[in-house]
């Protein structure tokens, strides 16, 4: 099969859809859209279109990343620009059919922006709105624009042209191109991709393996999910190119079972690519064979570590082994193996579809290209973003993210998940690249950015991550197995008011020991959240230990609830809500909390009607 025939056919279909004579409605239907009700929205559109007897395509697309505005809908009318709407529920969808599709009136209230070839004077361009402006979408270029279930949409947008180009080159030249692009691994450590490939290319042996790590385990990160759900063929194309470069004929996608939709779309994409001879035996008639199999992860964070992931694919407990030999020399079944992250491989596809210089024009000297981040937590505009490396953190959080909601004060941002650390407010100007982040004591990680405000307790955050690391420790080596447990015990003492000032030093020396003594990346990085919070928020630890106070009012033993006498009307609601009968008082009389019975669950505060606001939470303990 010739790719050119496919391209001609695909381009025709694509042009007809986005520039043709039939109107179209595009509904964002990734996991984020679905949880906001996009499945119902699709149905509402279909029903109304049928009822009104008009012709209109309803297309399911991925997520453009503006998760806080879900469900997202784009409407195309022949001759007019594509209009992007936010928060479209079933009611709004039905109304849009009449107002936009029939009467050509744009719903200004729900308008985000338009996508057009020629600037529209009256309407804002989607790419110019504050959230989008600083972004450069290379990896995510198709997400939210194409139907992930339609191979033609992908092909019409340069899809698989990277594979066609690759087939005209020698494997060494492909590696050379990736070297020129400056691409570094997007999974965490940032090792140059080409160098890893070269090791494997040079390794002896005829059977080699390529593994894509799609076991996105960092809590607070969903970049890979979004890409797999919105543009699965990008990953397949990247994998074909990587396999060609290193000389592998079998590849595995190790994807977590918690991503059911991503798995469905990946399976379909593999089937479509195989049918068109883009994958499988004799790819595009070149004689190059490459097969992809999916392995569902079973829920183990440590499997993000290369050797543990390999053990898991082999059917064993996901426990790492000492290196060397590195997987590039002896990996899966003892054969040379390359493990790359989803975003790395999708970047490879883009680099080959375009050229290395196109990719390396973005970013900094040492960190080239773009990076996707999941911007979540206490930030106005949550969602998935892609920015050039080297952009300042401030720009991400305040320009793109729109700052912290409810007029709260920004406190810190956590990067790199449980292996990373917290960056405090005074370092907001830091450039987001591998080396600057390492200097600040954290890592780029896979791209989770969790924003924290004044209501977040940094000691509790450190405890949370340690609890996670301790549970996920595979138990193989003692520093990690016993060390994380010890550190967690100390942190639990501190958050429950039983800490001593010597604990701080002990945490620091233990953290240092665990980093040096652990076998794999999990243990070597597990103390990072504690060490960075100790570095930047030591006063909070001291407050917990010395003053027995949690200023953020998070740690249960270091806060209390009380009823304000001048506001309580004796409505009796809190009395009924209290699970421990700690509240006393009769109807229409002032109520009181018995602190000795109170378990500080906060239910009384939640239930107290807003018009009274008679219950307050205070830091410390009532004397």
């Amino acid at each position, binding site marked *: 099969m010739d790719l050119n025939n496919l391209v001609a056919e695909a381009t025709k279909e694509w042009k007809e859809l986005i520039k043709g004579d039939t109107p179209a409605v595009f509904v964002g239907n990734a*996991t*984020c859209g*679905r*949880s*906001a009700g996009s499945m119902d929205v699709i149905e509402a559109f279909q029903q109304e279109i049928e009822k009104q007897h008009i012709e209109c395509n309803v297309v399911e697309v991925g997520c453009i990343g503006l*998760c*806080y505005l*879900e469900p997202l809908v784009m409407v195309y009318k022949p001759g007019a620009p594509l209009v992007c709407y936010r928060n479209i529920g079933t009611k709004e969808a039905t109304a849009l059919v009449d107002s936009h599709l029939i009467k050509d009136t744009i719903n200004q209230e729900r308008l985000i922006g338009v996508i057009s070839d020629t600037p529209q004077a009256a309407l804002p361009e989607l790419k110019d709105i504050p959230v989008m402006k600083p972004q450069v979408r290379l990896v995510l270029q198709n997400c939210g624009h194409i139907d992930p279930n339609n191979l033609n949409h992908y092909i019409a947008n340069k899809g698989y042209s990277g594979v066609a180009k690759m087939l005209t080159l020698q494997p060494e030249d492909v590696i050379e191109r990736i070297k020129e692009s400056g691409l570094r691994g997007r999974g965490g450590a940032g090792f140059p991709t080409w160098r890893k490939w070269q090791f494997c290319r040079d390794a002896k042996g005829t059977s080699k393996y390529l593994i894509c790590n799609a076991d*996105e*385990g*960092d*809590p*607070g*990160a*969903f970049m890979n*999910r979004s890409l797999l759900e919105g543009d699965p063929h990008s990953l397949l194309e990247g994998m074909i190119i990587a396999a060609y470069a290193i000389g592998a004929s079998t590849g595995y996608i190790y994807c977590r*079972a*918690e*991503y*059911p939709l991503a798995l469905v779309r990946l399976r379909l994409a593999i089937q479509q690519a195989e049918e068109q001879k883009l994958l499988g035996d004799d790819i595009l008639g070149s004689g190059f064979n490459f097969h992809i199999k999916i*392995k*569902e992860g*079973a*829920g*183990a*964070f440590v499997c993000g570590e290369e050797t543990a992931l390999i053990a*898991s*694919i*082999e*059917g*064993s*407990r*996901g426990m790492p082994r000492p290196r060397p030999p590195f997987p590039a020399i002896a990996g899966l079944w003892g054969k040379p193996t390359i493990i790359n992250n989803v975003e790395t491989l999708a970047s490879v596809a883009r680099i080959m579809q375009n050229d290395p210089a196109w990719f390396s024009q973005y970013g900094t000297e040492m960190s080239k290209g773009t990076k996707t981040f*999941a*911007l*979540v*937590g*206490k930030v106005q505009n*949550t*969602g*998935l973003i892609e920015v050039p490396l080297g952009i300042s953190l401030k720009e991400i959080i305040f320009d793109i993210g729109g700052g912290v909601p409810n007029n709260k004060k920004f406190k810190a941002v*956590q990067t790199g*998940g449980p292996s990373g650390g917290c960056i405090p407010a005074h370092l907001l100007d830091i450039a987001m690249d591998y080396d600057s982040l390492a200097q600040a004591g954290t890592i780029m990680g896979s791209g*989770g950015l*969790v924003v*924290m405000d004044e209501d*977040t307790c940094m000691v509790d*955050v450190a405890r*949370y*991550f340690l609890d*996670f690391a301790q549970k*996920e420790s*595979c138990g193989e080596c003692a520093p990690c197995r016993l060390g994380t447990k010890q550190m967690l015990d100390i942190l639990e003492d501190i958050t429950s008011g039983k800490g001593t000032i010597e604990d701080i030093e002990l945490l620091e020396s233990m953290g240092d020991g665990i980093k040096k003594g652990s076998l794999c990346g999990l243990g070597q990085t597990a103390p990072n959240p504690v060490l960075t919070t100790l570095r930047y928020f030591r006063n909070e630890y001291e407050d917990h230990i010395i003053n027995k106070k949690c200023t953020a009012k998070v740690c249960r033993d270091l806060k209390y609830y009380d009823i304000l006498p001048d506001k309580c009307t004796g409505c009796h609601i809190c009395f009924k809500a209290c*699970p421990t009968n700690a509240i006393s008082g009769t109807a229409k009389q002032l109520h009181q909390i018995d602190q000795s019975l109170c378990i500080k*669950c*906060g*239910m009384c505060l*939640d239930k107290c009607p807003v018009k009274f606001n008679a219950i307050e939470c205070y830091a410390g303990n009532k004397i």
Partner: protein
Amino acid sequence: MCECLETIFKKFKGKEEELIPLLQSVQEEAGFLSESAMRDIAKFLRIPQSKVHGVATFYAQFRFKPKGRKHIMLCRGTACHVKGAPRILEEIENHLEIKEGETSADLEHSIESVACIGACSLAPCITVNNKVHADLTPQKIEALFNKRMN
């Protein structure tokens, strides 16, 4: 050996590397991994039972008790944590009168916590039989369980 296991085994070659997919298929079908199912898997793959147990207990996905008809997965990701997931869990536990990791006696509900659902921009969130419920508050939990679950 029950018939359903035989049907599942037919889809596999009996190689050791198939252990995890096999456990996943059996759990998908039966809802959990019983002692006898794991014994049969060991026999089928010709590996020691200890290996099957070792692998099954290592991964968070596998459960050894049946799950409820309404299976609730609570996200414990970072974004959910800072936005109040612990409080949401407490509210669910109070409502259903079971704890995390438990199944109610009538097999109606079960609660499980997972590392991250990947819907971080909609934190805090849970899934009920794989349907995501996002942006939760204790009040919303109350409404959700009163309306749909009882």
